[in-house]
């Protein structure tokens, strides 16, 4: 959004900061300002307005923020209408609840001409073409207050305006001549015979021109979801739709409306020839929020005085009521603090956290120290085991000379049509299906490398592969490998020490793919995440063997777990099974263990060893 410095000063006459400073300050309080430039002797800022701050899509809302930040008085233009003598009631109808508020009036005996220079310059700075005085003033007021508005030439539109959800008209021609096909869900302003205007875009049928001498001018706020849906459906985005999709404040309409009517009367002559039509069926109640000013310090982590918090909210226009004072003997702290009602223009404030955000941003994030990070805290490790395995595999593969690549997880052809996961709306024809195999991606990568005549390619990728089983979407981590020498690839694979699952791996020439998530019992093959408590060794590690004969075949991992528990954690460095022997004559199994003990003398270690393996 563009903002002209001199126009901002009309709302804040005492604003005198340097443009560079204003740019930085606007940014710090949340309105990212890219740059400022000079256009026709005006300083113009380019801002990104936050999506929840519809109020700042106009000078008025932005000036309110700056008045709090700089502690300056806000002086919006005076906007009382004095010339209200007509008793004529406009025959306007509103037949839909999608209109939150609309105000309209008829002005007659106008003389519409080319806009004055100041208005043309204003619009130029806002990248908007000047049309004529009436049209330009409607745009001017939209930029000033953030409320879109519209003027209808009554010689074309008549006076029987109807705000309705379209049910009659099939086509609409906009002000720029675009022809749009309508359906039954479009919020429109029509008359009984013609489609006149969309909620966010005026129509050719009632356009203001140099011959216009009578208008109905209206300002309205609509149900924002309806405008948003209509805008998307008709693939049309306008300055008005951008604003009307936000949560705008119907309470701002009278001020903006009066300002517009006065400007039209001043610049085009004429007179008001109807009563003011004001449709405002459901005034929104502003919630009362419990607020504890102490929390500004608790949440920010730095001291923010309570007085500042209350003063800041007061300057924002909040209504502040202290909670009932403590009754005698009542120590309930919940009776401390305040009830706050945000100004109606601030639709983004609905809970205490929003109020705290206001206080903290005006106090200044730059006052919060940057050198106090969280300190280490021992918390349960929830890292999924496959992440450790993937890290380990990547290290092993790079040490074997493989380069890691990343490829597109969306591809243009399925390998298995039946189970492929398909995107519904991808705008890239080369990226429609979620890949079912990494080999598919690796082959593409190899083609590219060969195109570049890259010598001896040797690379891998670890990424997701996708499939569908009924209504369920399946995604698994996979490892894909390519080596220009197929024998070397096989040899390297052995070095990875992976328990391969045949069903999960596939080999094509020099490619190998392994579905990591299908590896049996992943936890057996990866180091468990532990807090690396350092051990001070005070004597040599003692390693002793033990043979255990069992009647049945046992899982060696379970045996290691069992005997580790028996030996105890205190002095056991490591326990491994070095040999398993099946005596076919006796049909017994002999397991050879190698136990290493630390910080024990020989005698004690041997004693523990014999006892633990029941060898005494």
């Amino acid at each position, binding site marked *: 959004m563009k903002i002209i410095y001199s126009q901002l000063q009309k709302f804040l006459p005492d604003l005198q900061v340097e443009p560079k400073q204003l740019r930085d300050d606007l940014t710090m309080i949340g309105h990212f300002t890219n740059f400022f430039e000079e256009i026709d002797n005006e300083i113009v800022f380019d801002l990104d307005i936050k999506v929840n*701050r519809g109020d700042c899509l106009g000078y008025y809302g932005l000036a309110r923020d700056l008045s709090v930040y700089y502690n300056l008085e806000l002086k919006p233009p005076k906007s009382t209408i004095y010339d209200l003598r007509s008793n004529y009631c406009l025959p306007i109808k509103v037949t839909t609840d999608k209109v939150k508020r609309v105000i309209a009036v008829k002005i007659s005996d106008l003389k519409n001409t080319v806009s004055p220079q100041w208005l043309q310059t204003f619009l130029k700075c806002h990248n908007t073409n000047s049309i004529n005085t009436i049209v330009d003033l409607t745009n001017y007021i939209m930029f000033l207050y953030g409320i879109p508005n519209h003027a209808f030439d009554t010689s074309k539109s008549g006076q029987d305006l109807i705000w309705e959800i379209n049910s009659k008209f099939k086509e609409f021609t906009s002000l720029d001549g675009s022809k749009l096909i309508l359906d039954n869900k479009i919020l429109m302003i029509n008359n009984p015979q013609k489609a006149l205007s969309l909620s966010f875009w005026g129509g050719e049928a009632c356009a203001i021109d140099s011959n216009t001498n009578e208008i109905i001018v209206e300002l309205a706020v609509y149900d924002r979801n309806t405008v*948003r849906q209509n805008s998307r459906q008709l693939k049309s985005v306008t300055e008005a739709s951008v604003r009307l999709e936000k949560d705008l404040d119907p309470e701002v309409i009278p001020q903006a409306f009066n300002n517009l009517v006065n400007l039209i009367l001043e610049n085009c002559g004429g007179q008001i020839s109807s009563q003011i039509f004001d449709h405002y069926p459901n005034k929104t109640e502003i919630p009362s929020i419990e607020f504890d000013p102490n929390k500004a310090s608790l949440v920010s982590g730095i001291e923010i005085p309570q007085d500042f918090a209350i003063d800041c909210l007061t300057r924002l226009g909040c209504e502040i009521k202290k909670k009932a004072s403590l009754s005698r003997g009542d120590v309930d702290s919940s009776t401390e603090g305040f009830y706050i009602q945000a100004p109606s223009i601030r639709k983004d404030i609905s809970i205490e*956290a929003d109020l*705290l955000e206001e206080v903290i941003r005006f106090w200044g994030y730059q006052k919060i120290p940057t050198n106090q990070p969280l300190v280490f805290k021992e918390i349960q490790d929830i890292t999924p085991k496959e992440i450790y395995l993937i890290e380990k595999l990547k290290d092993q593969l*790079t040490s074997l000379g493989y380069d890691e690549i990343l490829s597109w997880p969306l591809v243009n052809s399925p390998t298995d049509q039946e189970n492929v996961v398909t995107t519904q709306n*991808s*705008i890239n024809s080369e990226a429609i299906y979620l890949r079912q195999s990494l080999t598919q991606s690796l082959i*593409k990568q190899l083609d590219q490398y060969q195109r570049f005549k890259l010598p001896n390619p040797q690379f891998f990728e670890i990424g997701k592969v996708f499939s569908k089983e009924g209504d369920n979407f399946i995604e698994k981590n996979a490892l894909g490998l390519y080596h220009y020498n197929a024998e070397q690839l096989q040899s390297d694979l052995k070095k990875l020490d992976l328990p391969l699952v045949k069903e999960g791996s596939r080999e094509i020439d020099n490619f190998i793919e392994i579905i990591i998530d299908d590896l049996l019992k992943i936890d057996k093959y990866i180091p468990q995440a532990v807090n690396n408590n350092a051990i001070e060794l005070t004597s040599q590690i003692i390693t002793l063997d033990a043979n255990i004969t069992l009647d049945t075949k046992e899982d060696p991992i379970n045996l290691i777990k069992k005997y580790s528990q028996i030996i105890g954690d205190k002095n056991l460095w490591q326990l491994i099974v070095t040999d398993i022997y099946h005596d076919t004559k006796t049909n017994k199994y002999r397991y050879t263990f190698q136990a290493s003990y630390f910080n024990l003398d020989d005698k004690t270690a041997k004693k523990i060893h014999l006892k633990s393996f029941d060898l005494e």
Partner: protein
Amino acid sequence: MDQNLEKIKTDYQNKISQITTDKDLESIRIELFGRNGLINDLFSKIKDVSPESRKQYGANLNQLKTELEEILKNKSLKVEKADLHSLHNKNNLTTTSLPKIGHLHPITQTERQLNEVFRKLGFSIYNSPEIVTDDFNFTHLNVPQNHPARDMQDTIYIKEPEYLLRTQTSAIEAYLLAQKSKELPLRAAFPGSVFRNEKVNRSNHFVFHQYQAVVVDKNITIKDLIGTMDLMFKTLYGPEVVVRYRSKYYPEVAPGVGPDMQCFSCRGQGCPLCKYAGWIEMGGSGLIHPKVLEMAGIDPKSWSGFAFGMGLDRWTMAQKHIKDIRTLMGGNLAYKPNEL
């Protein structure tokens, strides 16, 4: 040839026949014909042979030497042919004498750097599915249907409106909070791919990479957030990096904080890279919105937390002087095989 020499010949014949590489062949050649090799050793023992047998022994030894040389020569040609065959078939290229060095992808390298920072602070590394429900990607992050914040992200749908490809790593946060709501406190960081429905060109891609960290604990403050983010930026970009923290909006946080890094190209003076702002937006962060905690089943009166996320692609591109975003996930990102 006597029996001993015959056996030596047979043994080495077998050994040589199993060799597949030049390197192994060279080892055998040295073993046989090196200064301290077997053949020299056998010749040095001629003096120990009886005078009447010495002549025959010498002849046999010479025969053995010639035969082994022949065997080696033939094998050498085969190995060379095999190597060439392999190279020509696969690549039509030559070999290098230095060992190949493998590389992690630059995105992985950055992720590793960040993981290290966070692990030192007691964070786990986490991940979640890339196909997510609308709930995890939007609703549980305080972005209900028709919320204008949805316009910030063009979504690729798998089955509209329920299933989609996650558009942000915050979806992992929502999933994580729901999974671990009863196992607090919580510290987790997660690198992840995210998807947006954008046309692929030099500047835009439908898939890119983000890094996010989440903390849920008692009495978490903005000071904790800013301090931790600053530590992260200094680890990535060096101690001299200048970062400012300002108010920013994201629906899943309140208050929201935006870190901007002083433009490394113009040092804050304004240039085309930073769109003349002098600063580059580095991501988003804030205290986790009370509604997000509530939707995960966490009581916001007892617990608070922070979250922040940043994109990795732009930074990686700047670091590696990559001008086309497609390079990061395409065939023209390569590595020197040897670095001296």
